């Protein structure tokens, strides 16, 4: 079995090979779904966003420019799609308790999930712009430059948003007592 680079798979998709697209889904559905989940705090909505992103990726495959990383290209779509979804509804709701990974039992997660949920709750209190940079930076381990490309703002804006987001999030966590000894 040959593991192809993303760009090769894209070329194969454009040549009519749908199985190449299935490989791209396998490769990216998990990180995209999880990012959407953390941005929205809603399992169903994250699923819809991820599905919608892949549909758009497929429809716009011809416009993909190989000089960009495919990974960045689809994340950019994810960011835009998340904004669209959140604009349609007020998403200031708390995290769905059913969010925990299906592969683990509630008992396995009891301690960790509590903290995870509380962090997620705190994240959802941030404005979307701030939440997004925090997640892309720390949850997805992206550089300022990559984030700038994804959200179409200069690197210095990313940095200043992240500075503010960090302060706000730390204040929320302190206010709620989710401190280092938690």
């Amino acid at each position, binding site marked *: *079995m*040959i*593991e*192809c*680079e993303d760009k*090769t798979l894209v*070329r*194969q*998709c*454009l*040549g*009519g090979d*749908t*199985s190449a*697209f*299935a*490989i791209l*889904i*396998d490769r990216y*559905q*998990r990180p995209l*779904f*999880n990012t959407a989940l*953390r941005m929205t705090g809603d*399992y169903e909505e994250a*699923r819809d966003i*991820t*599905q919608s992103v*892949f*549909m758009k990726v*497929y*429809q716009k*495959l011809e416009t993909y420019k190989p000089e960009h990383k495919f990974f960045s290209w689809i994340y950019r779509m994810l960011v835009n799609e998340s904004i669209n979804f959140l604009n349609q509804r007020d998403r200031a709701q708390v995290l769905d308790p059913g*969010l*925990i*990974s*299906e*592969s683990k039992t509630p008992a396995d*997660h009891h301690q*960790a999930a509590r*903290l*995870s949920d509380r*962090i997620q709750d705190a*994240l959802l209190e941030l404005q979307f712009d701030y939440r997004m940079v*925090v*997640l892309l*930076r*720390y*949850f997805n381990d992206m550089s300022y430059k990559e984030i700038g490309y994804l959200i179409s703002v200069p690197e210095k804006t990313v940095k200043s948003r*992240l*500075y503010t987001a*960090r*302060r706000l*999030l*730390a*204040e929320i*966590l*302190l206010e709620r007592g989710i*401190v*280092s000894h938690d």
Partner: protein
Amino acid sequence: MIDQHYMDLINRKIDGTITDRENAELEEYLAGEGEARRLYDEMERLPDLIRQLDIADPPRDLKQRILESVDPKRYKSPPSRNRLSGIRGIFHRPAALRYVYSFAAGLLIGIAVYAVSVDNGGRRGNLDPRDVSGTIVIGGETGDFRTADRNRFELEGIAGSIESAVAGDVVLIRLSVMSAKQIELAFEYEPGALNFHGYRQRVAQSNSLEIIPGGLQMKHQGENEYMFVFENGAPSGTTVVFKIHSGELLYNCRIKTATGDSKGR
């Protein structure tokens, strides 16, 4: 309320861009400001906290839902008229292409013969065609013969494709390449995981094939097709890295040689 100047220093310290002098200034400030210290501590551990967020499994039906929601014919290449016309068409192609197809067909027959006839301690003598892993697909929607794992590459002045087939412990790698300039082709694998048995080329030419520990390399220029034959040394298969160099690395892809259930992905 923390002064903006110190807030900037805190952020730069977290980003690792603070100077020694600024760091000393910040430490002195934090030592005397309990509230600022607590906020700094909290901001510093944010990356770790965010990384503690659970990784959720996507819904099991997500992939299926996506595939059902896209139009599989959107990028469909024009189909052949029918199976026979596709094959007949080969004989109406330019002479050079006819040779290519003849070579490929001969090669496929050669693969089968090689796989079932070569004896190596009695192991391949027991080769059952049912053991052949699903890399060769015959009769797709367009009626063409093709290899599912074919990977095409198009670089500046270089084009071609590489595909693999695994039958029992026989690994075949077919490489078709066209290059105006001289390039170096290399296969790399864990020493002992694969044993190189030989190769054939469509057009006989000297290419300085060299077998080195954990791989082989050769020079190439012009247009040619090669079939490399290996024996899987590891029962669970291994990974071969195929590379094209020309002073620098131009292309690489990984080929998994596992069969059946042990196949990757």
